[in-house]
């Protein structure tokens, strides 16, 4: 850590002193470029069907109830992970915990903003790059834009969200991110071939 940062640390508010897991990383080639995503707030949200509507209202985004689907609006995404489970991501770093709490219905919300980190994959080879480690069928017909799924990537778990024809957001746990990034880089480099 630089001396500059050190001295800054002695002041007591460190709320901006984040160390990002993939800081400074870049990878991929023309076929698929990799970029670490900016920090975001994230919620692991659990609830029964009868709470979905109220929670949706509280979060300002309608929680999807079909497998493999997601909803997005204004930088906020709700990803269906399981029949009672969503990953809610807010790219503006809004306070999702508070929003969920305001619903006053039975649910479980856990802040996982720092547990996860994300990698953005973009390029004509994005699909092939992700298929370098992910066994799912990622063709557009099977995995359309906004489709999402928790799945496996090599030896790590990821959550995959397709954001465009040629773009994916890959969420993974912090400590797995160098591995995911590394494997994705190799796969991306081969994706154009």
């Amino acid at each position: 850590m630089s001396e500059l940062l050190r001295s800054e640390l002695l002041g007591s508010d460190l709320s901006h002193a984040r160390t990002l897991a993939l800081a400074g990383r870049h990878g991929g080639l023309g076929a698929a470029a990799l970029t670490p995503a900016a920090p975001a707030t994230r919620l692991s949200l659990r609830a029964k069907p009868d709470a979905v509507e109220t929670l949706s209202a509280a979060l300002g985004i309608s929680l999807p109830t079909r497998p493999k689907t997601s909803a997005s609006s204004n930088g906020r995404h709700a990803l269906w992970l399981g029949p009672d489970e969503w990953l809610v991501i807010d790219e503006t770093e809004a306070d999702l915990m508070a929003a969920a709490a305001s619903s006053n219905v039975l649910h479980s919300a856990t802040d996982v903003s720092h547990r996860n980190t994300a990698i953005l994959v973009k390029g004509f080879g994005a699909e092939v790059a992700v298929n370098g480690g992910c066994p799912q069928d990622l063709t557009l017909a099977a995995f359309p834009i906004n489709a999402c799924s928790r799945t496996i990537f090599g030896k790590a778990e990821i959550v995959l969200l397709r954001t465009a024809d040629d773009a994916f957001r890959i969420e993974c746990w912090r400590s797995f991110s160098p591995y995911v990034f590394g494997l994705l880089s190799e796969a991306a480099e081969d994706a154009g071939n």
Partner: protein
Amino acid sequence: MSGANRIPGAGRLTPAKTARFFFDGKSYAALEGDTVASALLANGVHLVGRSFKYHRPRGIVSAGAEEPNALIGVERDAARKQPNVRATVQDVFDGMKVVSQNRWPSLAFDVGAVNNLLAPFFAAGFYYKTFMWPKQAWKHVYEPQIRAAAGLGVSPTEDDTDHYSSRYAHCDVLVIGAGLAGLSAALAAAKTGARVIICDEQPEVGGALHYDKSVTIDGLDGFTWAQATAANLKRMTNVKVLPRTTAFGYYAQNFVGLNERVTEHLAKPDKKLPRERLWQVRAKRVIIATGAIERHMVFANNDRPGIMLASAARTFLNHFGVTVGKKIGVYTANDSAYEAAFDLKRAGVTIAAIVDSREKPGEGVLAEARALGIEVLTGHGVVNTSGNLRVSSMSVARNGGGAARSIAIDALLMSAGWTPSVHMFSQSRGKVAYDTETQRFLPGAYAQDCLSVGACNGTNDLQATIEESLAAGELTARASGYSASEKLELQGHNAFNWTGGMAGAAEGAGPDTTVKAFIDFQNDVCAKDIRLAVREGMHSIEHIKRFTTNGMATDQGKLSNIHGLAIAAETLGREIPKVGLTTFRAPYTPVTFGTLINHSRGELFDPTRKTPMHALEEAQGAVFEDVGQWKRAWYYARAGEDMHQAVNRECKTVRDVAGMFDASTLGKIEVVGPDAAQFLNLIYTNSWDTLKPGRCRYGIMLREDGFVYDDGVVGRLADDRFHVTTTTGGAARVMNHMEDYLQTEFPHLDVWLTSATEQWAVIAIQGPKAREIIAPLVDGIDLSNEAFPHMSVREGKICGVPTRLFRMSFTGELGFEVNVPADFGPAVWEAIRAQAEPLGACAYGTETMHVLRAEKGYIIVGQDTDGTVTPDDASLGWAVGKKKPDFVGIRGLRRPDLVADGRKQLVGLLTKDPKVVLEEGAQIVADPNQTVPMTMIGHVTSAYWSENCGRSIALALVAGGKARIGETLYVPMPDRTIAVEVSDMVFFDKEGGRLHV
């Protein structure tokens, strides 16, 4: 001229595009597109290797993947040496270095060939019958000798510098094989819009059209049609055409492994390209169009260089423009070999004679032979050959005996017919059926969604092949919901339809037990060996295979299995289908380990999990240890310190001042919901109802069988929210265990689990000055002992970031565990460090943590317990709620053996000599004077030098241990016996006062 045997105008290679390569150091010319085999043959080189057992000179038998003989080494550089390459499938590239194998000192003069003279001794299975006396000689003489003779090529001895890649792919139709059948099927499927992948192991599509020049499709020359069709397919966005790609394994539910060779044929591959690529394809339907493999004839000395399959000679001529000899004989039981003779004859090569074991070959081929002036000897056999390093003559005799006539030749083509390639079908668990009329195994009952078409399905007729394949393509596409707008039609024509064929020993292989009529060239298995196996009682084809090693070489019996089976059937007097086939297994052809593992090497072999503070710790001198996938700071070595000194210093510092420790790897599970406490009541032995929000408790978790599974501190944040911690190694396991019970046994509970392990960076500050260190940084939490007693949890801020602050201790000191959102971990670590260091505190690692907790008698699940320890055994009985009606493990705990007397219990051990540190894992006995085997009553689970106690300390599991406190026991080591006294488990601050300051 790239080789004297190149025939001008023949073949499809471009004469101007030349390359040079080296074979055993000698330089040869080749053309681009040549295989090593075709290039050597072009230069008149037939001798390319030595056989496994007898070291017989061997040449090139085939022109494809089935090659048993022509195995070579290819060396790119010191690190990239490839043994056992089939010369028939390896392209030549400029500057390539090729070496022959299994010979010394040279290919032409090989000392090992003496084995050929000793061959009578080396009958199948001879080693089972000898080398038993004297007993010691096996280990010291015989086995080393046998081993030295083993193997063909030489393993690389340096790390491979090439890289490999992998891809998962999905399609509606996977077509394996791109001959006429595969291409037709792919075309029909592709036209419907279905997603199609078609692969072929060869560099270009076409299959049999490589050699069969008589074929025309829609008026186009067959090979030209194939290339045009492939080009056509490549242009379609729904199709992937993969040449040089072998389908090697057919697994459950249409999961097929493909091995694409990307750069192996290139002189200077682009470094960015992988050498090979693994495709893992999940197909809705599979079309198997793998063709057929020609069989050799089994007769005496049929293994000399220059003796090869007829279709191979035809491929060398028609595709590579190479003639395999100047005066060529043909020995066949099948019409197709005639066409090889015709093509060669038309190219100006002398055909010495066609020897046909049948009395009545096809009329068409006979007529053509007559027209071309080729002598045909029907009802004859080749009964022997001569020629040392290359065949020089064949002896021909009428079937049933008679005088043999010797005919001079320099190559001999053979064909016993065609074996449909049912490998993939059979790997799919389909059952083959024997077609008695054509004496072939064909696809019978299907087990998966696949179809066989063309030669591999036993379809001989060209037009029938086309129609069957087109139909299959359409049918399989339709199964995925695609349909054709118009019906595809193709018109094929060829010169002859092939008939005939035989399996087993031909005339001339005879019943004689000394004749070497080879079935399996690579493993030197002869017809006589099969017969011997049967004589020795091996009546199952599986026994015969294993006894003779027939079909067990790198070609996996592509040529030999059917012959072996036929000879076995004949010897046994049973029909072929009654004897049965051996099992087809993956891979179809050998696959490089590098391809199979592709990216999984080095950093990508397994995720390396590092905590948020890893880099800082590394900079502070931390040495790391592996715990599961995690790297944990083990100890922090300062200049001049060894591990021991560092740990002693850390231990002292924590107890005298304070220390900081990265505890981020501990598993964390957030348990949320109104029934959270009730759920934990069921999962843990403890009771949770009484735990107030803001307080923590140490909990133990059992498996249903009553043994300790995991432990950790659980903090209650609110009525409906718990922060559960688990061991580092147990995190994933415990989460799964809890989910399992929640979802399937207690689904009525309103509670949810979320893994929060990585949400939090955890910094433990332990020691008398812990409070002083963090106090200036913490906001909104009263840290006083009264307001925030031992085993409490508060939420607030530290350094302006949110924290879950635990007051707890795994050291026996006043302690806090600061949880902050992971990305803030490094900054907070540094901030705490800035407070801690001036006070004399230091960072400590897992080793110090282990020592300190052992001083306090705190256990580590997995070290002081294994999967056989109950809470009582571990002195944790207090944590088992006695009044609870149920919890996981409640019944298991009550089984007779778990409550029996004399169980191993965890106790402390004090060595009589305080300086002696026991070894973890050392065994304990009561009576040190016993002879081996000794009665062991326990073992040391933890042992350390305790700088704080000024002596060694240890924990141990000892039978009836608690009742032995004060007793002297013994730890026998190889060089001495260590006397120990059994003690309780707490060695430091027995009253525990330091926790509560």
